[in-house]
């Protein structure tokens, strides 16, 4: 059951990214280009997503002891803001600004068979690997 739910949620996520056109790197880059050809559309994507998530989280999830089809909520436990969070997020943003692609849209673009998408995902996987290696050493 959990797998079917995850599949449906994945389909919704991929559909949402496509309808919102976040799968288009140019759309993303123009959103980030405040001083140039600014396209505010992606602010509406985030707005739409947050309205739904904040309301349902506050009104429904917060009152539940456990999810409907699982034993417990697997929520991140870390609460402190540290250097890793800030440095990592800043580096992520630089990569996002260079390419116009983040992990969700990269994977959602796979069915196009575009070589650039595949190479992006390989480079991203290498980045993840290096970050994990460094984290294990510290």
């Amino acid at each position, binding site marked *: 059951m959990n797998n079917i739910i995850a599949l449906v949620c994945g389909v919704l996520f991929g559909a949402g990214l496509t309808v919102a056109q976040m*799968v288009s790197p140019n759309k993303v880059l123009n959103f980030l280009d405040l001083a140039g050809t600014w396209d505010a559309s992606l602010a509406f994507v*985030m707005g739409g997503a947050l309205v739904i998530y904040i309301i349902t989280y506050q009104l429904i999830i917060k009152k539940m002891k456990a999810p409907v089809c699982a034993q417990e909520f697997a929520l991140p436990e870390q609460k402190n803001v540290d250097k890793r969070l800030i440095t990592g*997020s800043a580096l992520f943003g630089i990569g996002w600004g260079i*390419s116009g692609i983040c992990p969700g849209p990269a994977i959602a673009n796979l069915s196009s068979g575009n070589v650039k998408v595949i190479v992006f995902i390989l480079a991203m996987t290498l980045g993840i*690997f290096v970050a994990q290696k460094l984290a294990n050493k510290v």
Partner: protein
Amino acid sequence: MTEFTPYSALIGGAILGLSGFLLLLLNGRIAGISGIFANLCFNFSKKLNWQICFIIGLIIGPLLTSPFGFSLPQSIDISWPAIIIGGFLVGFGSRMGSGCTSGHGICGIGRLSARSIIATMCFMSSGIITVFVIRHVLGV
């Protein structure tokens, strides 16, 4: 130039929010793509069935919206160096910072997590600065 599309953006965003809500409500999981993908690639100790299913869904999703006029871009006119350097930094940074646009930007802010609000402010500002430097300082 890209066309300003507030309605489809809002609807697409709402679908993303709904996906994240359902995954949390039913499975108790956060829809953070970088985390799901990283676990799938490098965490061999756990059973990862739901993560595999989610990623398969993510790949299928865009195929289902194309009959309604929403499809993937036909070509990606981002340069090869940008694809490779950008891809590496996106992977490295999202892992180091424990999340990306989905996990921090939607689910984390959606739970009003201080960490995610700060992370999102960091990657939004560094993304905006990066595009400014590339397009308006370097003029690429």
